[in-house]
Structure formats: C-alpha cells, structure tokens
C-alpha cells in the first residue's frame, strides 16, 4: 500500500518530486484529447478555453466528451471531499503509470503539502516547484501571484466543526459542505473547503486562483492531497465526526478515466477508506481507516441517545437558523475597504429566550446563540484578492484582530457568475461562523445591539480587470 508523504519530510536524496516533474513533462507532451494527458486531467476539474493558461491546448475532445468528463469538480457541496479523493486517486494512478513507463519506481505516491504546520517555511511552496523558474522544470508554473501563504489563510478551525453536512441556514455550518445535487459551485462552501482550501488556491493565484485552470499547476495536486489528508484527520478526531450516511451521498456516481483511458465510475462509498481506494494509500503520520457506514450510523445513534435531541440536531445537522438582519443593496468591493451595515432587530436572542426557557436548562447560563454571517450571490470577474472581514472595528483602537470574523476567497467567482451547463450563475455563497466573535463583541463598551458594522478589506489592491459584488450580506442566528 502506498504512503503519501509530507513533501517537507521527504528524506534527503528522495526522488519523489524528481519523478513527478518528469511525469508532468511527459504528460504535457500528450494531446489534450488523451485522457491521460496533463491538459485533460486538469480540464476534468475545470476548463475555460479563453484563459491564457489554456492557450495551445487544441485540438480538444468532442463537445459530448467535454460535457461528460470536463468541468466536473464539486464545490459548495457535500461531494467536495469524495469527488476530489476520486480525482486524486486516478491522477496518482496515471502519474504512477507514466513514471513506470519512464523507468521509475512502481510505488510512487503523491506527496502532500502541509502548509498548516508551524515549522519554518511550511507555508512556503516547496522549492522544487519554484526553482528553476523555467518550462523545463515540470513543477514550475508561470503566473503564480505568490509562493508563500499568510498564516491566517491556513488555520485549521474547520477541524472543530462536528457535522459533516451543513449550510449555516437550515443547519449549522458543515465540515464537508452542504447537502446538494451535482454542484460545480453556488452553494455555501464547507468549512474545510473555505479554509484552508479556497484560501490556498487564491493566495497562490495565477492558474491556481481559478477552478477552471487550477489543475494545470502541479502544486494543485499536493494541495489537494493535504485537503484529502485533513478529511481523514477530522474523522480520526472522533467525537461524532462521521461521514454522511444518506444514499444520495454514498451512491452518487462520478466518472473518471483510469490509466488505461476507458471511463470508470466511482461513488463516495468507494472512497470512505483510503486503504481501499484503487490500490490503497495512507498518509504519513495519520492512522487510516474511516468508520464504515454501519459504524457511522451507530455512532450517530449513540450520540443521539446519550446526549438528547439537542446534540442529535447537531449531528444530523437539522438545526434551522433564522435570518435576523440583511443588507438592502448589493455591495461592490474595491481596493478600499467596503463598509456594510446590518440593522439588528434588538438584542440577539439566546437559548434562554427560546423554548429552553421553560425547561430546567434555563436555570443555568446557556452558550451563546449560533450566529452565521452569510455573503450571498457574490458575482465578479477575474481572480480578486482575498478579502478579510471585520465586525464593529473602531478606527485606531489598536486591537483590530479582535474584530476579525474571517476571510472571503472568491475562488471561482467568475465562473459562478454566469449560467453554464453545470451551474446556475447565481454567484458564490460564503458563510462565516461568528458565534464566538459576536459573544466577545457584546462585552465591549461600544456594543450596539441595534446595528452591526461589517468591514470588508482586500488583502492587496484589486486589479483593474477584477471585480466583486456581494448581492446580500445577512446574519443568521438560532
């Protein structure tokens, strides 16, 4: 069984990256019509002919093949994690076969880039991907905006999210994304997808900054191996962290190509345990083995019995929130900070004021009501910079970070803005869990129970050819 290793812990003299670079160059020689070519593999995630990154990719497969196999990446969906696991598995198989054909080892495995480590340089792109900066280096990619990712954009708060599924409106936010049908984008991104996944994409920028070109950058695959690893890490943390058990999630079929090129079908059920995905793999330092479906169902049931309906609701992600405030007009972002105001209906409700008031639970202080800040119907052009969101900041108070609510990556915003065969064109949707922040803000002397000030600030100036409009900002609460 293969072991996917930490790219920064490869032993001296290890040739994993060297063989990867050779395979990339070899795959780039193949025509785009070949399912094992570099271009075809990248296009399965996303393809956009007018992009300069896709120049020279013709001739292309038939329109029918493109509709069937290309632009299939799942975003803003509970399929985000399983689809990318399948995608990586077949890609790794194709790269592995290419390496063998080139005379390399038979046990090549895709390494992962753990940018969330606290070790020095962990957030820097592995040197082999940066230098030499020439097309002869299979791992180098022209046009990247940055080779290093700010610490804020690789935090792992997502691992603390318990339910796998959730959208922050009909349920708490979910680790893996909202329940959906085939979703190329549009729904709220899951917690892991939002951070660090989306952030790393946009922070690196260039081809990586857009789902329609991201697969062309060789670092994409190490990034996604890390996201795939974090799924296993999350499962291993236990405490009711379980995969969905609904048939719609387990049995939904996705099509790929294997190393021999014919179409193959996979479902989420096929990738629950990394040890049984194709020839199987594990991650360095991460015990393998996701709970089987029956185990997951039993775990959820035990949780329900042991901790009552309240926990049951969280595990089943069935808590419904209510919108308490929303903006009345769209907000157009610019290189300056954008201010938006939410008129609150009064003091936010807490559990004490709800049904629990009539139970003995009401006699003890309850935790704050869940508050989710939504950014809906986000449309735009290009690859805008990451924007940081602050609530109720006061000029020059010297403690701005205490007001930090989260960041918006806008990964794939241009594609989400136009209807196509895979999505409705209603724009993107991000949600930030601001429960703890709201709770702390309420203790500040300048807290205004009638109004919330949202400040959206770009991490760097916006290019002239980029734009972002947020259709609605809203606050949902229990």
């Amino acid at each position, binding site marked *: 069984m293969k072991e996917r290793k930490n790219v920064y812990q490869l032993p001296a003299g290890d040739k994993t990256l060297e063989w990867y670079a050779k395979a990339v160059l070899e795959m780039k020689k193949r025509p785009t019509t070949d399912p094992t070519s570099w271009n075809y593999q990248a296009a399965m995630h996303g393809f956009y002919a007018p992009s300069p990154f896709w120049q020279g990719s013709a001739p292309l497969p038939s329109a029918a093949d493109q509709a069937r196999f290309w632009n299939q990446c799942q975003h803003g969906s509970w399929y985000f994690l399983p689809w990318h696991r399948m995608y990586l598995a077949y890609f790794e198989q194709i790269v592995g076969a290419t390496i063998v054909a080139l005379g390399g080892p038979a046990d090549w495995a895709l390494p992962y880039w753990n940018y969330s480590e606290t070790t020095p340089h962990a957030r820097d792109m592995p040197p082999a991907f940066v230098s030499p900066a020439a097309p002869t280096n299979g791992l180098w990619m022209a046009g990247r905006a940055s080779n290093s990712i700010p610490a804020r954009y690789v935090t792992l708060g997502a691992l603390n999210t318990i339910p796998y599924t959730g959208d922050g409106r009909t349920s708490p936010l979910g680790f893996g994304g909202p329940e959906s*049908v085939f979703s190329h984008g549009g729904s709220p991104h899951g917690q892991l997808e939002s951070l660090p996944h989306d952030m790393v994409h946009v922070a690196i920028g260039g081809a990586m900054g857009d789902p329609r070109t991201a697969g062309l950058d060789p670092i994409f695959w190490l990034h996604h191996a890390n996201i795939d690893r974090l799924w296993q890490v999350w499962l291993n943390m236990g405490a009711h962290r379980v995969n969905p058990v609904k048939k719609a999630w387990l049995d939904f079929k996705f099509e790929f190509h294997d190393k021999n090129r014919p179409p193959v079908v996979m479902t989420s059920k096929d990738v629950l345990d990394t040890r049984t995905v194709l020839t199987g793999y594990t991650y360095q330092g991460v015990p393998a083995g996701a709970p089987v479906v029956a185990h997951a169902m039993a775990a959820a049931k035990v949780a329900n019995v042991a901790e009552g309906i309240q926990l049951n609701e969280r595990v089943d992600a069935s808590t*419904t929130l*209510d919108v308490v405030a929303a903006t009345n007009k769209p907000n157009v972002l610019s290189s300056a900070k954008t201010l938006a105001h939410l008129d609150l209906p009064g003091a936010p409700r807490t559990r004490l004021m709800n*049904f629990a008031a009539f*139970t003995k*639970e009401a006699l003890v202080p309850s935790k704050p009501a869940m508050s989710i800040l939504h950014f809906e119907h986000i449309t735009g052009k290009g690859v805008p910079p990451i924007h940081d969101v602050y609530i109720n900041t006061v000029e020059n108070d010297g403690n701005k970070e205490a007001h930090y609510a989260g960041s918006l990556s806008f990964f794939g915003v241009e594609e989400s803005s136009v*209807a196509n065969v895979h999505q*409705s064109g209603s724009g993107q949707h991000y949600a930030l869990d601001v429960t703890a922040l709201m709770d702390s803000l309420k203790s500040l002397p300048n807290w205004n129970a009638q109004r919330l000030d949202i400040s959206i600030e770009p991490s760097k100036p916006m290019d002239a050819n980029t734009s972002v409009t947020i259709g609605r900002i809203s606050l949902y609460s229990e």
Partner: protein
Amino acid sequence: MSLTADVNPFSIVTAKLRNLFTKYPEWRTWGLSLLAWAFLLYGLFNMPGEASHAGRSIYCLPGGGASLQAHGANGAAAEGTFAGILKTVFDGLKQWNIMVIAMMFPLLNEPIRHVTFSVRRKDRTRGILGFLLGYVTVWMAVGLLFMLLPLFIDMLVGKQNQLITALIKASGFLLAAALTWQPARLVKMTKCAQTMPIRINAPQLYTDTIMYGLKMGAACFNMCWAPMVALMLAHHNFFLMWEVTLVLLCERYILPHTSRLPGYAWGIIAFALYSIEMWG
C-alpha cells in the same frame, strides 16, 4: 429548540415532525399540487366534461373554435356573447392554473427553499405566496397564449382526418424529445435552480419574492414549454398529465442533469399517442 431525552415520545415525534416541516418547506407546494391532483381526479370520476380536463377547456379540444361558442355557463348561456367568451377564457385559465399547480409546483423545491430560508421565519409564508404569485402569473400569461393554440391549428388544418390528428397529437412530444438534444437545454436546466438576493423588510420583501417568482416562472417555461405544448396538442387528459409530470420530476430530481432519458420518454409517449390515434 432544546429538548431533553426525558421528554415523552409524543413530544419527540412532534419535534421531529416540526423539524422536518421546517427543513423541507416545499411541503407547501407539494401539498398544493396534491390538492390539485385530487381535484382533477375528483373531476375525472364525478364531473365528466366539467372538472376533468379532457373535453373541458377550449384549448384541450379539437375544433376549439366551435367549442368556444358552446362553452358558456352550462354550455348554453351567453352563447357567442362577449360575456360568454370571457367566461370561457376564465374557465380555461382556471383549469390551466390547476394544471400548472398540479404539474409544476413539485418542481419548485429549490426556489421554495431559497425563499423560505432567505426571509425571517415569521415572513416565510408571505414570501412563498409572493413567489408563487409571480410564478403563476407567468404561466397564466402563457396559458392565454396556449388557449389560442388549438384555434390556430384548427384554422390551419381545418377538418382533420385521422392521420393528421395522430400526427398533431404526437408532434408536440416529438418536438420535446428533439429539444432534449439541444445543447442549450442544459443551461436552461441549470437556470431553473437560479436564486437571487431577497430583501427581508417590506415592501421589498414582496417585490423581491414576486420578481423572483416571475423570473423562475420564465425559466421554468423556457425549460418546460415543449411538453406543455405537447399536452395541449394531444388534448391532454389526466393520465397523460400524470405521465408528463413523472418524467419532469425524474428529470429534475432523480436523473443526472446531463441525462438524455427524458428525450427517450417523450419519444415513447409520442409513439404511443400516434399508435392509439391510428389503431385505437
């Protein structure tokens, strides 16, 4: 909501049901659809020629021009008068709307969820009503046009022989089948799941939900007009409506969005209609 495990089982069931109804607000449109189907079914068995669709409205009838004259109150009063025509149009629209509610409302899960969870809990019913008002308005306008379709065909082909009648009945579904292979169809399909920002305070709450309903009505018509025209041309009856609804539901909720199976289904229906007309 917070309940403890020692609450009695009835309360737990009630809470779970409440959760279900809250989480799946489309129960309202499905409920309305069921009522519409019940009305049609009732008409089928109890009011032949009255509430049952076949033989009822002018747009369902071959020789619609003739039936326009005879479609006043009790089939006799106000014959040929403006009031009689108005009554006929009103009755036709009523039937048309019942058909739209029965067939189209179950296809609205996503927009209904969007409206429901975009507005305050206390405004959910109002929001949904605003949306449905906009949605039905589009279909009502279309219904007026569709009422003229049989008249137009009647004028065009005159007295129909069996072959022409069979071809007309089958042609709509053949058209629907052909359109399944139209490349733009997939985009039309995804547009049926479009959403838009909805403001939560009146009066914008109402204008936005109505506007969204109009938009979705237009998107839905753009996607589903061919089977609906086919129903008109085939002098639709209860069972044909039911079959079309089943295909539309499968297309929307069960099949992959790139599936061509609905096209084959329309083709089979077209062949069946042709065969029945020709060979009984």
